[in-house]
């Protein structure tokens, strides 16, 4: 079989899942079932066809590069073991689809069910076929997620929701541990590739990180396989539809854990830690699971605990570290999947027909459904390990291994007795299943009083699986033999033990143990029968110690109580303490490393201080401090002083050879000032001093803030001084300076960096600018001012009163006459400023200017018309459409970038050449100029949109909002 098809094999179920999901509208009930059945069948056949390629230790590999930098490749790898498991997944998957066709009722969303089921099948195939540990981990997570979705399929049911959540929490946490574990494992082995890891066993076991790696991987595997102490999620997952329980929670997903243990068996097993960790978990699950199963009232609960017990058996076998035990473990994986899936399906049929799964209500069903009853009895016998059935064979192998001595310890010596007790328990619960459900008087207290045989094809999957149990049980070496040996070879390699799959080995110790278990189990059942018919749910004593309850209590404590405590004690909704922390921590973050590095600020002589520059900065500092003082009660004054600081900043840029910055700072200063002026109108009036300076607490608070401000300012001064006194090292600046003209075709290096070298950054920046402008616009569309800000302002009222008082004036004249001369000048300036903006833009590539500065200047031209004539006057004469400017700008920028693709260059590669224009002559043009045009247009649009949106609020009419009072409603 071609290797490429492995990929197809994996994609097929996912594709089928999507196709099924698309059928959500169809009324036809069987169509999703048919589609997914066909997909499952095709996957099965495809898998089966690979058999010749994996025999005798051969491996099929298909590798696609994914993220090779971190060693993550999409590697698919199928060997004998993976093939056997893939067959389990696909065959049982197909049977479950057939069964579910009859099980899921028409009221349920059918396509959703089958889509999830197929997707789960694909994820499980992914786990089985992964040839890369990280890839395996990803598919592992996918199985957890689809298991969550399938358990919660009936999400209207609270039990289903809780069960799904618990399963996801436990297996998701386990999956996380697994991911960390495999990362460690890959780190130790030097590669995440499974083949490398499998051959690096000796290195891994001797590595100091072996124990943490082992513990993490074991947590992953044991949570998935519902082993003690993580077992409690599985019984709660029984709220899932029965086909899901049959497929996920007995045959496949819970087997992923033991699959992984067997997969990594050659690498990790054989150590003392492996034996104890796995052995304890396995043996505890083995015995407790079987013991708990006896006392369940719910049929599916019994099967769930039995699953925990059987998986415990597999884990125990794997823990022993002997090749023969590994063979038995793999064999039992297959056997358990066959009989447990059929039992779940039978339980589902009983539930479907009678309406209950309570074993204290069910009885005597044999007379209503003899066929199903017979099938269930055979499967139960296989579960109990009765001879001539597959369960017997692997159980005998387990007993034989239990008798052998592996790692001499108490656990090892006790194992034969524990195994026999386990055997007795499993016989007891199997007999209980058969005896209570099928024998005795007809049921008197069931919701559906007339049960009968299910439809023909609903029984088919059960028949198929039970037949498999029989065939394997009677002629093992002719049926499962070759497949098992293929699987075993691929796990154990050359280390193949001799084993025989015969039914009869003579009178041996294991056989004797079986007999003891059979007899003991039967006696135990007859002793418990009375008690079981009326007892409470769950085993005595233990029923009060519910894993679920403990889990919930822990969750509530961590996610509610602790979280609340942390929020109440460490959090605040108030902004000031938060900002205080930010400022304080910023100071510490800068100061502590400097202090530790032995920072020593040496003050040089006060030479070289230019008195003019110092004078300018005296003004700047006074402005800044005064702005800080006046911002509360004198907003306009503070704004003017803020502008003063801005102008000083602007002059500093100009002084220190950065004309581009000076221009941009200047124009931005203008629009910022206008912006804040527009906002002032909507702020509340602050009259007089609020009495706060007298309160001691307020004083202390101000003192603390003042101290914080002083140390932040001082720290920043020292830091800035230290940085600026450093000789400038060789930086990337030289690269830009050397290449700006040769590669960017421009002499203004700052502009070339913006539109060419770092054009992609600039593109992100203008996108942000556009988004901010749109956000401002959107926020203001639903602007609701405070009631006292609505209506005419005090100033307007005074003006109007003045107009009214004068007989020769009409109301509004004062406003119209206000600053008449400047406003006429402003109107005249319109073309001049626009010309200047275009000039700034065009010269940008070679001289100070560019798209940013030009764009804002252009916006100022529009702004002045609004200022001079008023909003209504300006809009009667001008239609600016800032949204289109923004869209156009962004389009031009993107189109310039995309344009370079057509010439075979990467995105935003620029090209420069000289263009001959009539009259003007030769001018340099670069495609970057076009990009700069986009910047220009977007900046114009964004600035104008923001300012106009705020300005418009003054001419809107507002209704005064009436606050609904609480007692009215």
């Amino acid at each position, binding site marked *: 079989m071609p290797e490429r098809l492995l990929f197809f094999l994996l994609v097929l179920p996912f594709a089928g899942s999507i196709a099924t999901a698309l059928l959500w509208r169809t009324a036809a009930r069987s169509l999703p079932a048919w589609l997914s059945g066909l997909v499952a069948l095709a996957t099965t056949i495809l898998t089966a066809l690979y058999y010749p390629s994996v025999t005798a230790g051969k491996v099929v590999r298909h590798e696609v590069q994914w993220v090779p930098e971190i060693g993550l490749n999409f590697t698919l790898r199928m060997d004998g073991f993976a093939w056997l498991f893939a067959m389990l997944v696909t065959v049982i998957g197909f049977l479950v689809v057939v069964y579910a066709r009859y099980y899921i009722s028409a009221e349920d969303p059918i396509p959703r069910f089958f889509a999830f089921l197929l997707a789960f099948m694909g994820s499980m195939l992914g786990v089985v076929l992964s040839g890369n540990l990280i890839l395996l981990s990803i598919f592992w997570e996918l199985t957890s997620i689809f298991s969550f979705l399938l358990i919660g399929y009936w999400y209207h049911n609270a039990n289903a929701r809780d069960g799904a959540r618990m399963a996801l929490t436990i297996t998701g946490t386990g999956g996380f541990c697994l991911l960390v574990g495999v990362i460690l494992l890959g780190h130790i082995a030097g590669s995440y590739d499974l083949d490398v890891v499998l051959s690096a066993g000796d290195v891994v076991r001797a590595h100091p990180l072996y124990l943490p790696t082992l513990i993490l991987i074991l947590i992953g595997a044991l949570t998935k396989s519902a082993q003690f102490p993580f077992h409690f999620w599985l019984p709660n997952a029984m709220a899932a539809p029965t086909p899901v329980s049959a497929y996920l929670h007995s045959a496949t997903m819970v087997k992923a854990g033991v699959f992984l243990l067997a997969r990594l068996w050659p690498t990790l097993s054989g150590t003392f830690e492996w034996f104890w960790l796995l052995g304890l978990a396995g043996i505890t699950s083995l015995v407790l699971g079987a013991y708990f199963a006896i006392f369940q009232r719910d049929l599916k609960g019994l099967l769930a605990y039995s699953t925990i017990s059987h998986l415990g058996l597999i884990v125990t076998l794997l823990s022993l570290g002997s090749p023969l035990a590994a063979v038995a473990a793999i064999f039992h994986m297959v056997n358990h999947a066959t009989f447990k899936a059929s039992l779940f399906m039978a339980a589902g049929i009983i539930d479907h027909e009678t309406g209950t799964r309570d074993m204290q209500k069910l009885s005597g069903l044999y007379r209503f459904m003899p066929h199903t009853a017979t099938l269930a009895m055979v499967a139960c016998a296989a579960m109990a390990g009765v001879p001539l059935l597959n369960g017997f064979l692997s159980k005998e192998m387990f007993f034989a291994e239990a008798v052998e001595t592996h790692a001499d310890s108490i656990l090892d010596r006790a194992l034969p007795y524990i195994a026999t007790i386990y055997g007795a328990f499993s016989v007891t619960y199997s007999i209980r299943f058969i005896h209570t459900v099928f024998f005795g008087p007809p049921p008197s207290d069931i919701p559906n009083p007339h049960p009968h045989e299910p439809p023909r094809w609903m029984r088919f999957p059960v028949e198929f699986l039970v037949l498999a149990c029989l065939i394997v049980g009677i002629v093992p070496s002719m049926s499962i033999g070759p497949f098992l040996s293929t699987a075993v070879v691929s796990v154990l390699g050359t280390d193949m033990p001799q084993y025989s799959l015969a039914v009869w080995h003579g009178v041996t110790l294991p056989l004797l143990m079986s007999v003891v278990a059979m007899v003991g189990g039967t006696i135990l059942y007859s002793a418990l029968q009375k008690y079981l018919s009326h007892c409470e749910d769950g085993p005595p004593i233990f029923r009060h110690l519910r894993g679920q309850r403990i889990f919930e209590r822990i969750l509530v404590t961590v996610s509610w109580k602790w979280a609340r405590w942390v929020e109440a004690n460490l959090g605040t909704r108030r902004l000031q303490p938060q900002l205080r922390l930010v400022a304080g921590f910023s100071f510490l973050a800068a100061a502590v490393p400097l202090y530790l590095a032995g920072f020593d600020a040496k003050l040089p002589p006060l030479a070289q201080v230019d008195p003019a520059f110092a004078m300018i900065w005296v003004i700047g500092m006074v402005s800044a401090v005064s702005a*800080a003082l006046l911002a509360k009660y004198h907003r306009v004054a503070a704004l003017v002083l803020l502008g003063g600081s801005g102008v000083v900043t602007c002059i500093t840029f100009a002084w220190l*050879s950065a004309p581009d910055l000076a221009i941009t700072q200047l124009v931005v200063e203008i629009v910022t000032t206008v912006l*804040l002026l527009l906002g002032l109108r909507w702020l509340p009036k602050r009259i007089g001093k609020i009495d706060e300076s007298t309160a001691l*607490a307020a004083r202390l608070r101000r003192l603390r803030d003042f101290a914080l401000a002083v140390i932040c300012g001082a720290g920043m001064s020292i830091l800035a001084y230290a940085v600026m006194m450093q000789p400038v090292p060789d*930086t990337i*600046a030289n690269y830009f300076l050397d290449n700006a003209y040769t590669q960017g075709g421009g002499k203004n290096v700052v502009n070339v960096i913006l539109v060419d070298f770092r054009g992609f950054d600039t593109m992100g920046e203008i996108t942000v600018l556009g988004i901010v402008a749109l956000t401002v616009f959107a926020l203001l569309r639903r602007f609701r001012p405070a009631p006292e800000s609505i209506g005419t302002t005090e100033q307007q009222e005074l003006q109007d009163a003045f107009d009214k008082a004068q007989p020769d004036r009409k109301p509004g004249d004062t406003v119209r006459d206000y600053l008449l001369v400047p406003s006429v000048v402003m109107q005249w300036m319109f073309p001049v400023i626009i010309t200047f903006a275009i000039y700034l833009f065009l010269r940008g590539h070679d001289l100070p200017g560019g798209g940013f500065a030009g764009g804002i200047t252009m916006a100022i031209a529009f702004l002045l018309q609004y200022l001079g004539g008023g909003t209504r006057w300006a809009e009667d004469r001008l239609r600016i459409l800032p949204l289109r400017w923004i869209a156009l700008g962004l389009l031009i920028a993107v189109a310039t970038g995309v344009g370079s693709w057509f010439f075979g260059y990467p995105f935003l590669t620029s090209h420069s050449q000289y263009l001959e224009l009539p009259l003007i002559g030769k001018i340099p043009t670069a495609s970057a100029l076009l990009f700069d045009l986009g910047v220009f247009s977007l900046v114009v649009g964004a600035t104008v949109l923001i300012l106009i949106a705020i300005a418009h609020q003054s001419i809107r009419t507002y209704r005064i909002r009436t606050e609904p009072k609480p007692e009215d409603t």
Partner: protein
Amino acid sequence: MELVLSLGIGIMTGSGVWLILRPRTYQVIVGLSLLSYAVNLFIFGVGGLKVNAPAILADGSKTAALADPVPQALVLTAIVIGFATTALFLVVLLAARGLTGTDHVDGREQSQ
């Protein structure tokens, strides 16, 4: 030169920090503007202060004599983005004032 500029940066930072710790939204917006001046100047200063250096490439000029263009390019976009965020903050504070009826930064007057 460096001494004056770093003192100026410090004073602006101190005033800005003081203002952003105040309870009124307008104080915070003025404080943020002052802080952004300080930070822009600081970033600009990292490139080294050069008086009377050519800002534009000319034929035959030595590149080492030129002012460092990288912090300038950073600061240039920071100035424009600073305007945009100031506008956004202004609109948010106006909307909050309309909704809550107060211009306190927490949307409600403190009881103390």
